[in-house]
């Protein structure tokens, strides 16, 4: 792609990622949540894949690391649920209502759910685009 798209992508990708974390962290007090936040995070990777070539993308992202991230976030999600069921930590007393730090452990569930959704979608996009990069007659 040309220089305009590359420069715009360099400016926009961090902002899109910040917005994805904002949507997923504010999931319990405003519209949004783990799933839309994760898909916004993955759409930043989508823009990166469209604008840059194969080597430039693989310098920063590797598929194995993203798969590991998905596994770690899934285990963390399971750990939070088991912590709620078994230990029952009473963190609602430490929180103030109607602020960001409220709603029990929902904020952690939203955060790790967003990471699981984002890494899964990144793996899907990566496997789709790698086929396009392999075929020589493709326009990408």
């Amino acid at each position, binding site marked *: 792609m040309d220089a305009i798209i590359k420069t715009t992508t360099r400016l926009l990708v961090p902002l899109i990622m910040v917005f994805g974390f904002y949507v997923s962290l504010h999931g319990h007090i405003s519209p949004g949540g783990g799933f*839309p936040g994760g*898909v916004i995070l993955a759409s930043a990777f*989508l823009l990166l894949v469209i604008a840059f070539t194969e080597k430039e993308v693989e310098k920063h992202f590797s598929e194995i690391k993203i798969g590991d991230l998905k596994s770690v976030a899934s285990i963390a999600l399971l750990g939070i649920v088991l912590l709620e069921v078994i230990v029952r930590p009473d963190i609602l007393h430490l929180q103030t209502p109607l602020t960001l730090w409220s709603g029990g452990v929902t904020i952690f569930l939203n955060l790790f759910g967003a990471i699981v959704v984002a890494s899964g979608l990144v793996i899907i996009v990566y496997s789709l685009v790698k086929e396009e990069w392999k075929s020589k007659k493709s326009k990408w």
Partner: protein
Amino acid sequence: MIFELLLLVATILAIAAVEAKDMLYAVLILGGLDLVVAVIFYLMAAPDIAITQIVVTAVFGTFIYVVAVNRTGRKEGIE
């Protein structure tokens, strides 16, 4: 008033997406249809569904359709 206007625009875009001969144009019109449907959801007091509609259908659906069009060919009915 604006709600009925958006419903009319959504209907016109859906018919245009079906009738388009070029598949890439059909996919882009479908993306526009998803944005209009998201605004309709927002006016019906469902901003959560509107966010999911924009993010999943208008971004990821369009990407997957573009990859499929890139593999199968742009013109309709020609092999």
